[in-house]
């Protein structure tokens, strides 16, 4: 098992009622981590559902796909498309 920090922003943070959690996971990559969170059901299942516009970052860098491996101590974030500027 590894320990990772998961952060949520904007509409996803609001839907989940939290912006930050630490969790123990055996997920080998980001895809598996997202599946694990979706499997919690409820707000998680809804906010992170496949087909929703959810963007991810790993260790504070945007990732285009979810095949990136998950290391112990990683910081992962889930958020909607960005709208700055």
């Amino acid at each position, binding site marked *: 098992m590894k320990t990772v920090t998961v952060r949520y922003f*904007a509409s996803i943070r609001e839907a989940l009622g939290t912006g930050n959690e630490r969790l123990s996971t055996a997920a080998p990559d980001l895809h598996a981590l997202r599946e694990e969170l979706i499997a919690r059901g409820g707000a998680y299942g809804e906010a992170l559902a496949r087909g929703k516009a959810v*963007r991810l*970052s790993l260790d504070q860098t945007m990732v285009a796909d979810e095949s990136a491996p998950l290391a112990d101590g990683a910081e992962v974030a889930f958020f909607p498309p*960005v*709208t*700055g*500027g």
Partner: protein
Amino acid sequence: MPRVSIQTHDFDLSAEVAALRAGDARVGAVCAFVGTVRDRNDGQSVSTMELEHYPGMTEKAIEAMIDAAHQRFSMHGVRVIHRVGVLQPQDQIVLVAVTSAHRGEAFQACEFLMDYLKTQAPFWKKEQTPDGARWVDARVSDDAALARWGIRAANA
């Protein structure tokens, strides 16, 4: 002076540009873009706007964009300021200022940085409208704007 500031307080365009080109006689062109809060969006009036960001990542992402701009354009100085927190219509949101020897590079680098920032920097806008609060949707046209520079974006 840092290249990137994320702050709640306002900025002074004249002071920022003066600081950016101070003592640099190579500069022959300064291009600055200022984004401001509109009082209407998608057919609704907007009373206030709240900006959220990802502390740490936002700064890193913009620093990387500036590095990418330096690879493409001959620039001398760059200053990016983005405000967060609660803003009102007419408030300034963002400043991108670029100095270079000639105008072409300054115009291009400024537009490149703004196009990049719109789709790749982690900021999120929430508007207060007469119907309540709503998160602003990302625009496909912003991805298209970045694609013009040969960078594939899949934000919206």
